[in-house]
């Protein structure tokens, strides 16, 4: 029997009480082979940092397999709206049209003021060829907001919730 979905409501300002009690910001240990430090900031429509936000990621393993016990992590944000995660580059996963997707993370951002989480993807800057044939990136007029930037010791991926440079957000 079909059931009507429960409406979403904001996480509000106090979610760290329930959601950030335990460290869960590592898909793999920082000293694991291939570990990548991913950082970034969440910005509002005025370009101001959003400190009361939380990022969750879901990814395939390095072979491109999704495994229930591997590949999820979350991070709160500091006073500058910055999150920090440790992960590995996932392998390529089949797309919906008979090809392969470029390596990517699925990301959800939760915050006070977001009545539903926003859904986005992060792609890797050193995968130009795979990114060029990715069916999601290829369908977008401007996919630049979905590709992380290399930093000295990892990757940087900022999320702009609104306005100039607004990140591409998805529905399913």
């Amino acid at each position: 029997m079909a059931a009507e979905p429960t409406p979403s409501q904001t996480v509000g300002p106090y979610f760290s009480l329930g959601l950030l009690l335990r460290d869960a910001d590592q898909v793999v240990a920082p000293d694991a082979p291939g570990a990548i430090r991913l950082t970034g900031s969440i910005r509002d429509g005025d370009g101001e940092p959003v400190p009361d936000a939380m990022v969750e990621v879901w990814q395939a393993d390095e072979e491109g397999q999704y495994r229930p016990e591997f590949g999820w992590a979350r991070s709160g944000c500091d006073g500058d709206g910055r999150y920090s995660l440790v992960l590995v580059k996932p392998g390529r996963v089949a797309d919906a049209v008979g090809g392969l997707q470029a390596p990517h993370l699925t990301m959800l951002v939760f915050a006070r003021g977001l009545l539903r989480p926003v859904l986005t993807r992060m792609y890797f800057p050193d995968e130009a060829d795979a990114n060029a044939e990715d069916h999601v990136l290829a369908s977008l007029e401007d996919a630049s907001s979905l590709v992380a930037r290399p930093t000295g010791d990892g990757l940087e991926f900022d999320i702009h919730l609104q306005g100039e440079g607004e990140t591409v957000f998805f529905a399913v």
Partner: protein
Amino acid sequence: MSRRTAQKPRTLVDGGDPAQPAYLHPDYVSTRLRAPQRPLIVLPHTESELTGPAYGHESIGELDHDLTRQHAGEPLGERIIVTGRVLDSAGRPVRSALIELWQANAAGRYHHDVDRHPAPLDPNFTGAGRCLTDDEGRYRFVSVKPGAYPWRNHPNAWRPAHIHLSIFGRAFTNRLVTQMYFPGDPLFAFDPIFQSVRDPKARERLICSFDLETTEPEWALAYSFDLVLGGPNETPLER
């Protein structure tokens, strides 16, 4: 970057579904600078959208579901039992779904640095819990009824009493975070977060029901609240 030619993606203008809040709900002031303004791109369903993390029972502590037994003494307030089921949109139970919960204490104060409401903290109440659903999708928490509390959205603004709930479904894109309200709260009409759901029938789905059968005589009142997850419903790997 060269790209193979692709069809233009299907897009969705936000706010089309009155049973879910739109990102922009100006009465809730914090949405004004945080709501995305561009149409959402509809993703085709691949394994990235249809899979999600799973949690084992070993990761849940024995008292994680009982917010009244996490300290040396008992918290003040009206003891409550909250039970319900997690279902997918086809009405099927979602088993081993992780539910995380947080709430204010009976006086309407959160155990959180940012909360400046001059109501007392309770040394015997943190207000956080979690559990996994069983094979029928059932969950059970024991807590105290949270108090209403003021906030600064507009003059004399008060949140109706509520419990925050976060749920992981079978797929990561089934993630739900919501708030459970209590029947008959006089603050409903004045709360822009509750009212952000425009469909009154959908708003009713945010309110738990008093549940006499589950009530424990001379111990605690009970409320029931089912959680129905939207989003993709395909199951690539039956777990």
